[in-house]
């Protein structure tokens, strides 16, 4: 394991420290917690809290700031934080108008965040939640765990954050976030594994000529292991799987996110985007805005995901609203 770290068991604490030191104009560390919160609070606004395991940087603390999150809860690498820490995040984000939790659909995240909601209610803070499950690589099912939340979550942060900034009440903020969730679908792939610092070795092995289609952001396996394909083929495959889901159709307007998983050069993400934009044009889908970069990573995994968010007038306005965070600026 080759990492620029000090102690594998201390990476999250040190990251929070270095992040607060770098961006003290935007965010601060709530002492003795796993929470990074906004410096400038908008009073009377619904608070937006996200978080989960670390290792997805800039998710989630990179989206703390005006127009997006009020607090991010940074769990251990790939491990949901416990409810006490989520509660700290809720407290940091609450300014009286209630708090919305943006949860990615993983058993651990859902359980810990729900327990935190119960604790917050005991402290008479109004809390509601939305669960993001944008990953079409996984079958949609209520019987099983269902779909994972991956990079599309960033769009949900943006929409919920912008809506909250308008002063809308919790129910409306939740409704907008849920519309974003209904409208966003993602699909990823990986060229290499990643190493949890405390584990010290990669989560799996991939041969020099293999890739995995449908890979999750924790190195959870995908739909299939195939031979390495070209960027154009990968674009075709990811987009076609997303479109199969039926949410995005000819005539629609969408926002596109080409997300790098950690060690895929921006050059490659742009190459992929060239093809993605061609395919969407062919399908009669209009691209309103495109975001290319690292938004939801899997430590140093090589690979990418593509997300499509179907837009209507409300979502466009919310997407375009100002956001002043360290990893997302509008």
């Amino acid at each position, binding site marked *: 394991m080759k990492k620029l770290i000090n102690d594998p*068991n201390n990476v999250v604490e040190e990251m929070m420290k270095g992040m607060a030191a770098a961006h003290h104009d935007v965010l601060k560390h709530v002492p003795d917690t796993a929470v990074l919160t906004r410096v400038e609070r908008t009073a009377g606004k619904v608070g937006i809290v996200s978080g989960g*395991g670390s290792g997805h940087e800039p998710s989630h603390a990179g989206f703390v700031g005006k127009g997006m999150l009020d607090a991010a809860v940074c*769990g*251990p*690498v*790939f*491990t*949901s*934080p*416990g*409810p*006490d*820490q989520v509660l700290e995040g809720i407290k940091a984000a609450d300014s009286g108008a209630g708090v919305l939790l943006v949860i990615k659909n*993983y*058993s*651990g995240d859902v*359980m*810990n965040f729900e*327990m935190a909601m119960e604790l917050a209610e005991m402290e008479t803070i109004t809390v509601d939640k939305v669960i993001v499950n944008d990953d079409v*690589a*996984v*079958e949609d099912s209520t*019987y*099983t*765990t269902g779909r*994972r939340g991956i990079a599309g979550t960033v769009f949900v942060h943006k929409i919920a954050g912008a809506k909250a900034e308008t002063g809308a009440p919790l129910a409306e903020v939740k409704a907008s976030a849920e519309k974003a969730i209904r409208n966003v679908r993602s699909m990823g792939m990986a060229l290499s594994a990643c190493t*949890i610092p*405390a*584990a010290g070795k990669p*989560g*799996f092995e991939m041969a020099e000529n293999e890739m995995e289609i449908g890979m*999750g952001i*924790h*190195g*959870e*396996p*995908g739909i299939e292991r195939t031979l390495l394909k070209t960027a154009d083929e990968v674009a075709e495959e990811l987009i076609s799987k997303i479109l199969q889901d039926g949410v995005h159709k000819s005539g629609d307007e969408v926002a596109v996110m080409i997300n790098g998983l950690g060690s895929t050069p921006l050059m490659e993400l742009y190459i992929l985007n060239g093809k993605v934009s061609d395919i969407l044009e062919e399908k009669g889908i209009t691209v309103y805005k495109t975001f290319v970069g690292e938004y939801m990573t899997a430590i140093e995994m090589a690979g990418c995901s593509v997300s499509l968010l179907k837009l209507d007038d409300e979502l466009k306005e919310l997407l375009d609203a100002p956001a002043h965070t360290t990893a997302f600026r509008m």
Partner: protein
Amino acid sequence: MIRVGLTTKHIQLWLQKTNEKIQENKTYLTELDQAIGDGDHGINMARGFEEAIKKTAESDYESPSDLLKDWAMTLISKVGGASGPLFGTAILKMSMSVKGKAEINYAELTTAFEEALAGILQRGHAAENQKTLVDVWSPIVRFLQENTAFDSAAFTNQAKEAMEQTKDMQAEKGRAAYLKERSIGHIDPGSASSFYLLQSLSEVIEKEGVTV
């Protein structure tokens, strides 16, 4: 022999023994999770149990319930992931179940396990046969219900067998569910750590000559 039941001291020994096994098998548990999950289960459990040992070393506990409560709260706070809420809830439900008791007898232990399982099911919404730790806790509760006194060897065997049976299951809850058929052939990590917990209880009862 007088049926003294499990005292605070025995619960302390149970926690210690479980912690030892978790620490020893940290890498093994992580490897199980690398095969069908995200590779953090051993790390999570090791972190949480180490903290539970530290936390419970600070106080003298009056009752099993008090000790179980601190143990549970520490797991909930420090394990994280899916296993934190599940193991934490299980132990917390046990704490609530044995509240006010200085010693826990067989019937009380059975009830405590029933409530622990109920807590796990309520939290995780998993059913049996979905390749989760429910597949160890459910059989062990049935085993306790079907017997009237604690048989250490049989208890351990039952837990072990249940754990091993998860190997052939296809996961439908938790992260391993994403793998579908590919999840078959691997022991469920949470079931493995559940086994260590149960085995440790059994060993404490055996070694200390507790008559439950």
